[in-house]
């Protein structure tokens, strides 16, 4: 196999790993920021009343610690363009977009400390597809009849404009356990 053949095979493998160009993020719960359009699930109760910002967990080196990479540990259930590649970061929307008030929560293990964290995959909305750093991982994803665990739903649904631009991955706290279904 020549070098280019190997490259082509890598491309094929990568395609095989990616299942969805535009979908949304796996969910373990949901909460509303500054509203009560949906019931707050227990997992979100500890965070609904304040703005967070108590400091992020430690990060590791390499792709699992790089927010512009699909391998980043917080992205274990993400499905979309990474805001870190679009003018924002894993916690910040790009200029001119709006962070979706409705979201859904995954659980990802941080290799830096071995702990599981609850991750809120807030979409950034109101501009068209970012088009960079597409990433789809489906740990814990469920069909759309179980909406707050479904990463196929356009979660800009609660925003001013439902046009999807990119996705963030905010830590909202420690989770006691990881994903149950293995």
């Amino acid at each position: 196999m020549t070098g280019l053949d190997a490259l082509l095979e890598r491309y094929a493998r990568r395609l095989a790993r990616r299942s969805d160009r535009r979908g949304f993020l796996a969910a373990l719960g949901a909460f509303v920021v500054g509203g009560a359009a949906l019931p707050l699930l227990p997992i979100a109760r500890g965070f609904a009343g304040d703005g967070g910002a108590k400091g992020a967990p430690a990060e590791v080196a390499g792709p699992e610690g790089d927010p512009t990479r699909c391998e980043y540990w917080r992205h274990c259930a993400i499905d979309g363009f990474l805001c870190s590649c679009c003018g924002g970061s894993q916690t910040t929307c790009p200029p001119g977009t709006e962070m979706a008030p409705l979201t859904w929560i995954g659980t990802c293990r941080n290799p830096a400390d071995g702990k599981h964290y609850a991750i809120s995959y807030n979409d950034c909305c109101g501009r068209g597809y970012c088009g960079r750093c597409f990433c789809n991982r489906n740990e814990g994803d469920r069909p759309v009849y179980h909406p707050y665990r479904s990463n196929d739903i356009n979660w800009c649904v609660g925003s001013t404009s439902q046009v999807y631009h990119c996705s963030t991955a905010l830590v909202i706290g420690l989770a006691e356990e990881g994903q149950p279904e293995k």
Partner: protein
Amino acid sequence: MLAATLIGAAAAAADIQSDERGQVAVLPAAPGPHWLWVPDRVLRHAALFDGDSGAMIGVVDGAFSVSGPAPILAPKRGEIYVVDAVYARAYRGERKDYVTIYDATTLAVRGEIEIPPRSASISHGCQLAAVLDDERFLVVFNQDPANSVSIVDLEARRFVDEIMIAGCALVYPTGGSRFAALCGNGTAVEVELDATGHQKRVARSAKFFDVVADPVTEKGVRDGSRWLFASFAGQVHAVDFSGEQPVAAPAWSLFTEAERAAGWRIGGTQHLALHRATHRLYSLVHQGGPGSHKDPGAAVWVYDVGQEKRVQEIAVPSLLPAFARPLLELERGGWGDWLLRRLAPNPGVHSIAVTQDAAPVLFVRHEEIGAVGVIDALSGALRREIDEAGVSGPTLIVPGP
């Protein structure tokens, strides 16, 4: 500076051969047996192909959906419907949702019907709207994020009613003026409309699957009054909607224990297809771990639904050569094509669809490879590849009943 004098290209008027201007093609009155719509989320249209010739024969547009527009044919009306939405300023401003009515033969826009501005945008694109068997009502799934459906009267061309379906999702026509939805508590619910399109009756099945332990995917296939669903672990649940209440038959498995242990599971987007006349169920499968339920597969296993057993395995060829051929400007069947076919690995496909005629074809698509494979659904042999079939999109839609 007149062009003709400058370029010296004056026509010899006595000797003209010329083409007629203003001609626009039309489609045959009835869909061909192997026609296929390919929705595209980036090009924001659905392209119509003839699987026999491989030619693109038409297109309808749809700006809004993250899955690409899904054309829905009502054969008796001779119309095609596309649920769409616009913002007053393309990406911002007031949102307006509507159903575009296309003439099925000319593909001209016959009209439109405004609907509540909350039609769902879901990346897998499956069962987001449907024309009921009566061909009178179109049902559109809404999410804002509460779940409901909009009922559209196709005869009167107007929105009739919105029906809340809390906890349930999507639209599965079940006969007459009835449709079902799948629910987050492991049941199915069926709604019957009255002659004016308002809710007449609601019936719910017993719980037939566990949403956490082994949920069914939304990508069911219809067999008359029954819908067949497959679970993440490969259990087939057949739900019968012919009675007063939906009733699920005992589940059967697509996989043996040994196959399951070897990691075989369902996967992809539109991963099931059914040829009704022969009761052959096509299931896209792969070997993978937890969380791989959306991964593409390179094998389609075929089951006899009555016997509940596998009768055939179809190997899905790599679509990479068909994808790369136009990029590389290679001739089909030429040396470069031959080389590509030998060297290209197989990333598999996300979606499958089968036609309902006596010589059915199985269409296969990878969401990010702009090519569609056309496979003999009985022999499993590759008949052709359609290249330049789009940029990105999840579904394959065979028009017709």
